[in-house]
């Protein structure tokens, strides 16, 4: 079983987001992590590779600064890694880079998070699947294998559905597909020696352009209501906020 796991390199979830004067993310003091949804995909891929004597290749589209994040994925259990040497422009750009790598090998599964926690597009898995002519499943919250057939569950509004699909396929994953794995010392040491190949990006067209970033308006003070006066809270919600 050859599994390709695509990971994003994103600010830690507790990061306070700021932008620089030239309209870029202010990375000063920001710790970067594997995208939280991608982490679930990676954890399940490592489990499946263990069950099937398979391999996990982790792929990231990014500059050299993403290599600590890639090494963490190797420490978690990926066998090798590929970094496409380019700053991600948008979802279409990233998908085309992934497709170019995926075409080089016959992967049985291409897994990634349902969306990244920086650009929140939720598009890359669908773009990759369509470009490769593969079925896709997202958001995927369970994945088991029975030979060449995968059984999955997909979250739908108000519930879930169980699905079956033949390999190969693309899945955009989320919890509770697996428990996040924390690298142990042995994993961290072995990750240093695992292969990390850097490949150039392919040229693409049809890119969108990010012209400006902004922050939501500052929140006003929270209006406190006494716990014995819920009549007042109901009045405020009706007459002031006009939401009920």
């Amino acid at each position, binding site marked *: 079983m050859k599994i390709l796991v695509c990971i994003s390199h994103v600010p830690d979830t507790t990061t306070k987001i700021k932008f620089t004067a030239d309209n870029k993310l202010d990375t000063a003091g920001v710790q970067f992590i594997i995208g939280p949804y991608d982490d679930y995909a990676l954890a399940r891929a490592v489990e499946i590779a263990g069950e099937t004597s398979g391999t996990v290749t982790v792929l990231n589209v990014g500059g050299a600064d993403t290599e600590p994040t890639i090494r963490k994925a190797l420490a978690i259990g990926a066998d090798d890694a590929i970094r496409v040497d380019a700053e991600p422009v948008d979802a279409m750009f990233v998908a085309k880079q992934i497709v170019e790598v995926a075409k080089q090998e016959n992967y049985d599964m291409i897994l990634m998070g349902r969306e990244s926690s920086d650009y929140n597009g939720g598009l890359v898995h669908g773009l990759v699947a369509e470009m490769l002519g593969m079925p896709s499943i997202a958001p995927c919250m369970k994945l088991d294998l029975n030979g060449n057939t995968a059984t999955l569950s997909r979250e739908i*509004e108000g519930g879930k559905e169980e699905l079956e699909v033949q390999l190969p396929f693309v899945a955009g994953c989320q919890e509770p597909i697996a428990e996040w794995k924390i690298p142990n010392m042995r994993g961290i040491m072995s990750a240093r020696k695992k292969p990390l190949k850097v490949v150039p990006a392919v040229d693409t067209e*049809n890119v969108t352009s990010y012209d400006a970033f902004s922050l939501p308006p500052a929140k006003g003070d929270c209006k406190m209501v006494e716990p014995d006066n819920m009549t007042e809270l109901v009045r405020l919600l009706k007459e002031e906020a006009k939401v009920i």
Partner: protein
Amino acid sequence: MSVLVFVEADNGAIKKSSFEAVTCGAKLGDVTAVAMGDINAGELEALGKYGAKKVLHAADSRLNDGVIAATALLVAEAAKKEGAQTVLMARSSLVDAVAARVAVKLNVPVASNVVELPDTSAGFKVKRGVFTGKAFAEVSIPGDSRVITLAKNAVAPEEVGGTAAVEAFEVNFSDADFGVKRTSVHKQEGDILLPEADLVVSAGRGLKGPENWGMIEELAKTLGAATACSKPVSDMDWRPHHEHVGQTGIKVSPNLYIAVGISGAIQHLAGVSSSRVIVAINKDPEAPFFKAADYGVVGDAFDVVPKLIEALKASN
């Protein structure tokens, strides 16, 4: 501008978020809607009230299963038939992947999670939610055509009183388009679906156990709200995963979000910060939720929630 809007239905009824998408489309140009599977005829005609001039309906029952690849082919074929410059969809568990595949089929750019009406005064620009609700991005989309998905509440649904002609629409699907087989579906019936809800009552570990959710459900029922929960509550199986709101769960943007016994960790706030009004009820006055909330009550949930239910019932 020619606009194609993909509309989704639940139990034969078109989703409110699809009416939002039709409203948005009607503000951009002439709207054709495309719908699939079993949908009540009256619902299809109702799309005209929101500005759709025409509705293409693919009644193929296989489309009831919401298969991503087949749905994408349907939408792409409809876009080609109508010469659509903009394909619009309301974001959902199905639509992210469908929008992506449609963009590839049509060879056009795609932008998702658009939070307000696109600016067409010079080119085509959208405002997207990024960094899990912590920021916005202004994005230019070059070219004559594009696919965009709308975040919930990006555009309020607006009745303009027109009528829509409903046409049958057929697509030649291959077996590969239905390569993903649905074997079963598990869905709570009769409840207000969380991603669609305008009012949400959510609770966390402060409730102490699943046996105490009765008052949360009663509060939700009194308001006509959906119920939700924090990640620890879902992880402990006190509530189902599809109620988990937060960074790695469902992101909601209702008009009112009431958080009971939830401290307000940044991962939870990431899932609710775009709610219009937030009420936090927590016995800890230092709970971070009070910094994100519009209204706060410092008190024990077991004391406050019954009083709130009583006050709501008295006000009706």
